[in-house]
């Protein structure tokens, strides 16, 4: 693990900081600090334009290899990129699923055709992606999915039918990666396929689900014989589970550093409020703020350790496995702390009707942190089984 930055790194820092300072202005000024978790609905059109401005500046896929259209930056440079992006108040990225998950999985598992067809749309910020894993009956038990894909040899395409749910950004995305059963007789992890499905087709209906915040970021997605060309199946039929899991490995990748910078911004904001409203006079609040600060440092060192080990293949290792459980609990407590710092004001919405303040959204959104991407209960089971080698939980399916 390297802890310092070279002069080349620092020159790079100046470059990205300078570019952000020049570009997060004018039409983009008001979207600074907006669009993060709990606030994804905010200024979507502007943030899409911003994604394309980032693309024009060459700032998407900075960690991807150069022959895939990326910039092949070192780990240190990627860290710097995320730090500076958050420091400048860069808005929540609408292309994060494409850049952080789809790109990497296509780079490692995609065909040449898939890489040529899909990577440019991500790098240009023109094609957004969503993740079609969960279903009403398949949440924690993801392998229980029942969405079916049927191959039509005459047309050389797949017809997909099923009901996906909690699909973030499905109402905005051009594309969705869908986990579906290619072998109707299969159960559990076997017989699944990983499909790249175009959202704009009559066979797909999207229904937004209202969240605690009163806004909608996730959706139900109904597929009724949606068409997917055969070259849009990643890997082979039956390889879906393996690919789906490899993709989840990227979720714990370098993007966690950007997430931590966002956490730092949130903590700073809470400290600012505490200074302003006098909450810093309270010894309990002071201690909780100090604990939050320490927790953030712990996460940062763990992330650096993880990334300096095995970054590009996104493989799970011990350090990565413990990260989600830790940050989700830390972040949920940060939400509680924000409300306690605000005091009675915490109850009052920013405006009518039901428009919440950023800290209220933070509080509510952090209720979900311990649920999505594997609940805390499931995380603990995984840690106990894979890190400690305890016997597997009894399972009925699979």
């Amino acid at each position, binding site marked *: 693990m390297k802890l310092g930055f070279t002069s080349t790194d620092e020159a790079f820092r100046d470059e990205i900081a300078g570019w952000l300072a020049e570009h997060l202005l004018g039409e983009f000024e008001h979207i600074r600090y907006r669009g993060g978790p709990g606030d994804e609905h905010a200024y979507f059109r502007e943030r899409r334009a911003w994604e394309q401005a980032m693309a024009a500046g060459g700032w998407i896929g900075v960690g991807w290899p150069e022959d895939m259209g990326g910039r092949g930056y070192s780990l240190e440079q990627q860290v710097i990129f995320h730090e500076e992006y958050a420091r400048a108040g860069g808005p929540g990225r609408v292309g994060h699923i494409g850049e952080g998950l789809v790109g990497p999985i296509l780079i490692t598992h995609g065909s040449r055709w898939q890489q040529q067809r899909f990577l440019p749309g991500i790098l240009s910020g023109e094609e957004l992606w969503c993740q079609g894993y*969960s279903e009403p*009956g398949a*949440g*924690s*038990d993801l392998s*229980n999915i029942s969405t079916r894909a049927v191959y039509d040899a005459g047309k050389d395409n797949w017809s997909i039918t099923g009901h996906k*749910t*909690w699909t973030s950004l499905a109402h905005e995305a051009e594309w969705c990666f869908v986990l579906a059963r290619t072998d109707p007789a299969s159960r559990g992890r076997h017989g699944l396929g990983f499909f790249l499905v175009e959202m704009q087709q009559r066979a797909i209906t999207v229904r937004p*689900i*209202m*969240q*605690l*915040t*009163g806004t909608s970021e*996730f959706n139900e997605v109904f597929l009724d014989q949606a068409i997917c060309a055969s070259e849009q199946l990643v890997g082979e039929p039956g390889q879906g589970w393996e690919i789906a899991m490899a993709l989840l490995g990227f979720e714990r990748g370098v993007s966690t550093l950007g997430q931590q910078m966002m956490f730092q911004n949130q903590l700073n904001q809470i400290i600012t409020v505490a200074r302003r409203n006098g909450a810093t006079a*309270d010894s*309990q*609040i002071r201690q909780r703020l100090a604990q939050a600060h320490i927790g953030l440092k712990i996460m940062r060192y763990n992330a650096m350790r993880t990334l300096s080990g095995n970054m590009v293949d996104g493989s799970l290792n011990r350090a990565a496995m413990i990260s989600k459980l830790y940050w989700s609990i830390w972040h*949920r407590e940060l939400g*509680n702390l924000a*409300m*306690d710092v605000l*005091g*009675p*004001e*915490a*109850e*009052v*919405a920013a*405006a*009518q*009707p*039901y*428009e*919440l303040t950023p800290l*209220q959204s933070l509080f509510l959104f952090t*209720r*979900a942190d*311990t*649920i*999505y991407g594997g*609940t*805390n*209960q499931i995380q*603990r*089971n995984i840690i106990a089984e894979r890190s400690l080698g305890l016997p597997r*939980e009894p*399972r*009925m*399916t699979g």
Partner: protein
Amino acid sequence: MKYSATSLLSVASACRGPDVQFSPTQDQLELREAARNYLRASCTAKYLTRRVAGGPEVADGWSGLVEMGLPGYLVSTTAGGLGMDAPGFALVAEESGYVALPEPLIEVAGVAAPLLDQLAGQQALAAEVCTGRVRVIPAHPLNPFFNQADPTDPVLLLGDEIRLVEPLSGLAGLDSIDPLRNLRRFDAIQGGGAVLARGDEAVALTQSAIQRGAVFTAAELLGLSAAMIDKATAYAGERKQFGKVIGSYQAIKHHLANAFVRLEFARPVVYRAAACLGQDAADLWVAQAKIAAIDTAIEAAEIAIQVHGAMGYTFEVELHLWMKRAWALAGLWGDRNHHLARVENALLSKNLATGPAATFCNHG
């Protein structure tokens, strides 16, 4: 409700101190039963969802509460009330929390009405609260924002002068995080209005009104907690993952058991405070009650959401209304820090007696 307070209370009553009433009377239990039946039949989750969608003017449930006599629960019979006492009302407050009642029952019946009843010359007004002709909403700087669903309700301004301020017309309401509460800023209350009490009398009445506000809010929080635990338990018994109901997983069982244990430990604290209002140390007991209830409700909300998975993160499953109410009420009539400071102060600055003679009798 699965957890009846009664069973626990009757055990507690065996070892109660000389002036501590842990066990409800027959009258209190009957009234609680009536309130429970009425509230659970009328204030259903469906009804709440409709109100959220339709705005606060849709089908106010106040008249039903008036028919039950609840606004006058603590008002003397001579003024047309039921003449009941605070521990009994705590049971009703718990029931109102259980259904996440949007009506300002605690404010009107728990805080304002008994104060008016005690004020010379205001019994007529107390009687009008009982008949439902007026609904008086209490306000005090301890609550910089207070719930006032209807801007035509007069406001009872508490403090070292107690005043009745006529409707706050023209004042825009504020949205609460709880879609069923409509807030007003305390600072925005204009001067004027009739002075009802001054000096020592006003201070004493205000102090006990605040205590009632805090303890009944604590009871309401217990009801909210019980409902959230029941909802999560029911969900855990239905939702299947990995081929089994999630309630069969130890992780889920332990979470729900923890919430339940905290709730049952909080109950006698709240009842003891309700039973001892008006005594010298009531402030301390009320503080303990509010803290116990806040901790219970915050934990119950967190666990109930977790057990529901992504379902718990939606506006479409009504659990969020309970969770948001708990959040709002946690800050009312003194938040956790406020009350903790009182306990701290009593213990460390005022040399609260903690010896054997004090600990288990009527102190602490």
